[in-house]
């Protein structure tokens, strides 16, 4: 159901469509360019590329530095995803179903990382970790990334819980299910897509995270984003476009999967539970 105050006036419509097409190109073109360059046969970042070649991907995968950083990223991403999902889901249930004083404050605390500019979080964690010797450690990374991703998981699961009809649980109770049974058979299956969604969300955010990682990494332990950053500032070459393309494709696949999941429990168009993306 939409309002169209400008349906008469074809001239306006044509202008509008043209403008929108340009904007869409503006939005998508850069990614396409990166993809194209990653398969360029030229040694520099020239466009259009003279020929097709997979040299940069080969270079990427034969470079121990890049492989190291990719492995580090994965080593951070998986535990972060698991912990953030576990804690965040529990927190969402606690907020939605629990009754305790200061619920509003706890809610704000849980969502705070979304509101505070990342640079401040990064500096703060750098300071904290410095004193505890956690800079440049895997544990430090996991802790930092968990802090950043819990709010996303909690918000996603909370949104699903709010949409979930409370009467469903009550109905199950009147039909003879215990509280535990009602949870597992009725609530959990309906929330599961949101939990998985949150899990994928958390992993992608961790994988793409740069600002905080910049501060808490060390030359020996750094995720792929930090390596990319230092390479960009130092020696820009198409290898970066190769890793960039990979990151882009990886994020794309995971997020496609996530939105498919989301489509399951919220019929209707692609309506985001949270309009906050990986804010860096």
């Amino acid at each position, binding site marked *: 159901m939409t309002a169209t105050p400008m349906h008469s006036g074809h001239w306006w419509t044509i202008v509008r469509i043209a403008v929108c097409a340009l904007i869409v190109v503006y939005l998508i073109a850069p990614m396409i360019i990166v993809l194209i360059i990653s398969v360029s046969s030229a040694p520099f970042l020239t466009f259009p590329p003279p020929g097709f070649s997979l040299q940069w991907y080969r270079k990427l995968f034969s470079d121990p530095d890049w492989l190291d950083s990719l492995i580090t990223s994965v080593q951070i991403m998986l535990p972060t995803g698991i912990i953030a999902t576990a804690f965040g889901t529990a927190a969402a249930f606690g907020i939605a179903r629990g009754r305790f004083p200061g619920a509003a404050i706890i809610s704000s605390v849980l969502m705070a990382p979304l509101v505070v500019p990342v640079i401040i979080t990064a500096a703060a964690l750098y300071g904290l970790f410095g004193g505890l010797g956690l800079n440049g450690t895997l544990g430090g990374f996991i802790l930092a990334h968990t802090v950043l991703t819990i709010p996303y998981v909690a918000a996603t699961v909370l949104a699903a819980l709010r949409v979930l009809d409370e009467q469903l649980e009550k*109905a*199950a*109770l*009147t*039909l003879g299910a215990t509280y535990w049974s009602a949870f597992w058979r009725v609530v959990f299956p309906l929330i599961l897509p949101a939990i998985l969604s949150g899990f994928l969300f958390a992993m992608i955010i961790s994988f793409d995270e740069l600002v905080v990682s910049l501060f808490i990494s060390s030359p020996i332990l750094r995720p792929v984003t930090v390596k990319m950053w230092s390479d960009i500032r130092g020696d820009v070459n198409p290898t970066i476009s190769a890793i960039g393309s990979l990151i882009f494709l990886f994020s794309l696949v995971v997020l496609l999967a996530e939105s498919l999941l989301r489509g399951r429990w919220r019929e209707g168009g692609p309506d985001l539970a949270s309009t906050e993306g990986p804010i860096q």
Partner: protein
Amino acid sequence: MTSPILELRDVSKGYGSHIAVADLSLQLAKGEFLSLLGPSGSGKTTTLMMIAGLLHPDAGEILVEQRPITSLPPYKRNIGVVFQNYALFPHMTVAKNIAFPLTMRGISRDEVATRVHRALELVGLPGHGGRYPRQLSGGQQQRVALARAMVFEPPILLMDEPLGALDKKLREQMQLEIKRLHRELGMSIIYVTHDQEEALVMSDRIAVFDFGRLQQIGSPTQLYDRPATRFVAEFIGESNIFSGTVSATADGFSVLESAGARLRALASAPLPAGSRSVVSIRPERIALQAGDTPAGMENTICGSVSEVVYLGRSRKYVVRTDSGHEVTCLQQATSGSEPGFELGASVSLSWRPEDASLLPDTATN
């Protein structure tokens, strides 16, 4: 009542300073269809939820077949509930929904299949077991909810405004369906509704609620002909209310002086002379005659017709009395009778004292 199947004793429930239900006592006989009727917020759904075990009374006891169940959790009470929005599990098929309570009770799979099949037939949805709730219409969902609440043969069935979301035609159809099932299966049913017509049609007895208190409980006829409070008189059907002062009481009748008229009415609870009170008379019990009548007669008022509403099989007249009061009268159209009164015609209204009720003047609005 001998051995009621359900009994509430002095049940109360409040939220902070708001009282949802106050000192409620009532009984449900075996096989009875009892409606809880009242405006929104009057406590009927709260009462229902307390019986189901989803809310806990602050005070009082709830007994099923003489045994107290107040401390029993809902899943041990074996009471069926049909929720207002049906609450069908969206991730389960219709068959799985209906099978749910049987599965919870550990019934064998074959037995479950048989009973689900029978339940679907009973509510008129054979073969719909494989569908999902979102694929069904509102009326069909309602019937699945009903089947699910009945399939485990609970002794008591609670229904919370189940027909509220349906359109008029469908609602009337479902009312008859539910009555039929009630008759065939002989269940004891408590039915919450805010629609007084629905309650009159379906119930053996009606309990009228207002502001968390039980106003009156009785058969539809009792409530209609002998309302006990002004609220009941106005909530069920239409009523004309005259306020005034009691001047005399004798032989179960009282006389009320109201705006110069003397109204004699049946007084079930006699009030002392001089107290403020009201008399209630139903529109269809008032007789209209043309012209004035000699002053001083009891239960007679003069006035002029201010509105005529043609209803097909009857006519509704609004008569403005000499004292400015507006009285609604309903007159059946009998064949070959007078063409009816015109706007502005002078009429006199009269009724029998047995048709009017003297009620305490407790206007709750």
